[in-house]
């Protein structure tokens, strides 16, 4: 009887922990020889394991370029296996678009490959990487097992990059973070916008300089009007064939900053700003309320300072 009970308990425990830590990554083709892995429009948790981000890869004539490596070692490893199911060509370069952890913590799985990023992104990963990883262990739990920071070992800069028989246009921007790299694959017309563009998910702002971000969005939108543009891959949310994610991100940032500026001028305290409801247009926007509250913490003090200093 006792043994049976033990067996039952083991079975129960097994079913509760049915988690196999499989992100179930399936490469989705978005253009010829261009694939993406689309993450959920959620915040990090122990169910999604941090798979809230878009990553992708381009299969060139002599190899593969990977764009962002995901939120964990496990993601990186599974991504690499999923890539191998599409093509047996070697991965020749991994690009990290910026220094946020969901975009580079899979680097470990590509430790044998050059990993490139803008100079400030390399610095940012070296400086903040461990703290970011620690935070993701807290939020995503065991999915993070074994994950360690692998700092990019190659500095990329703006301009054309010939790699894997492909011509990439590297566009060095900033605003979402201190360094945001957008990658345009000239052959397929695919623009990997990184987290400068969010689609159907509220943007995150922990390192945002909004004025710079808006300027970067203008530049990206201009690119989408070029005749060879075809596909836009945002950092989060669905892929599009137009500039909608760019406009959506711009609208959110404009609303957010106007609202915070007005609140500061009206004399609101941070707690009152946090308590404000989102306008109806953002009802139901995934993580809208949560990102608004986070953004108040990040951005309100500067608006407050402006409002108080102009009162002197």
């Amino acid at each position, binding site marked *: 009887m006792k043994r049976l009970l033990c067996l039952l308990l083991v079975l129960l425990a097994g079913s509760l922990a049915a988690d196999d830590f499989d992100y179930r990554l399936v490469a989705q083709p978005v253009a010829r020889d261009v694939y993406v892995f689309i993450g959920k429009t959620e915040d990090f948790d122990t169910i999604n394991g941090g798979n809230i981000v878009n990553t992708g890869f381009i299969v060139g004539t002599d190899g593969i370029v990977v764009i962002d490596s995901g939120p964990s070692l496990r993601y990186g490893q599974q991504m690499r296996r999923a890539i191998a199911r599409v093509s047996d060509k070697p991965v020749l370069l991994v690009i990290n678009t910026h220094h946020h952890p969901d975009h580079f913590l899979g680097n470990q799985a590509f430790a044998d490959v050059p990993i490139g990023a803008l100079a400030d992104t390399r610095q940012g990963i070296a400086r903040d990487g461990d703290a970011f990883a620690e*935070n993701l262990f*807290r939020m995503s739990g065991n999915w993070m097992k074994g994950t360690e920071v692998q700092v990019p070992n190659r500095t990329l800069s703006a301009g054309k990059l010939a790699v894997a028989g492909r011509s990439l246009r590297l566009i060095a921007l900033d605003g979402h973070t201190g360094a945001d790299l957008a990658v345009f694959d000239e052959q397929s017309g695919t623009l990997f916008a990184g987290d400068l563009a969010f689609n159907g998910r509220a943007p995150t702002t922990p390192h945002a300089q909004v004025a710079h971000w808006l300027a970067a969005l203008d530049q990206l939108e201009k690119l989408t009007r070029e005749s060879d543009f075809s596909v836009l891959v945002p950092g989060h949310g669905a892929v599009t064939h137009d500039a909608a994610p760019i406009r959506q991100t711009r609208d959110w940032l404009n609303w957010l900053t106007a609202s915070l500026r007005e609140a500061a001028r*009206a*004399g*609101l*305290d*941070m*707690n*009152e700003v*946090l308590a404000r409801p989102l306008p109806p247009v953002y009802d139901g926007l995934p993580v809208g309320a949560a990102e608004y*509250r*986070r953004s*108040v*913490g*990040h951005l309100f*003090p500067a608006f*407050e*300072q402006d*409002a*108080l*200093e*102009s*009162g*002197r």
Partner: protein
Amino acid sequence: MKYPLTIAAIALAALMSPAEAAALKDGGDPLASARWTDMEKTFLAGAPVLFDPRVKVVAPSTAENPMQVPVTVDATALPGIVEVVVFADFNPIVQVLRFFPEEAPAYLGFRVKLQQSSPVRAAVKTSDGVWHVGGTWVNTVGGGCTAPSAAAASPEWQKRLNEVSGRQWSQGPNAGRVRLRIVHPMDTGLVAGTPAFHIEEINFTDTAGRRLMRVQTYEPVSENPVFTLQRGVGGGALEASGRDNNGNLFKARIEQ
């Protein structure tokens, strides 16, 4: 101790709505904090204590930035207030600030550094000697007290130390409100090599020299502290003056 406390509870209940009276508690911490007994000994020793819903402490349940957790204390529903002490049970330095609302309503907004998830409480002493306690839990990932101030990393702040920028609102929904920001690193002394360096006292007076409020601030108050007060409309300019623990003085006039 039990007897006078109950008397106080009954006397208070008579002045309150039934719902509020039901929420009054003279024992058992509603926030169920393991540190409550210590807090009571440290701050409220020897006096009757009531958990009182009229002491409103507003703070986010989850703090995005543990260095800048906004807290608003509103005890304006209580008469005869002598002193308000604000503390966070699980902070390495628990005492955040004290304020003495003399001519101003018992309302103060500010921001604190939290090292870990903790209750943030306000204990309000009324003239009958009773402490009325309100509070709320704030969850945070921590680091607020042992992370260096931004100022510690940059020499720029020295030029602006104790610079006050402030504003009064005489119109609109926030008429009668005063907000001010003081440039100060508010170093806790818990970061190796950086001694405690913080504002200790701020006095708010009107043009006739009447003191509206005195605030004593301690290490956990956030860097470049921001305060929100309600002083009412038509009171003219306001003077904010004070000093830090290194004896640096400041004085600023906030026009209406």
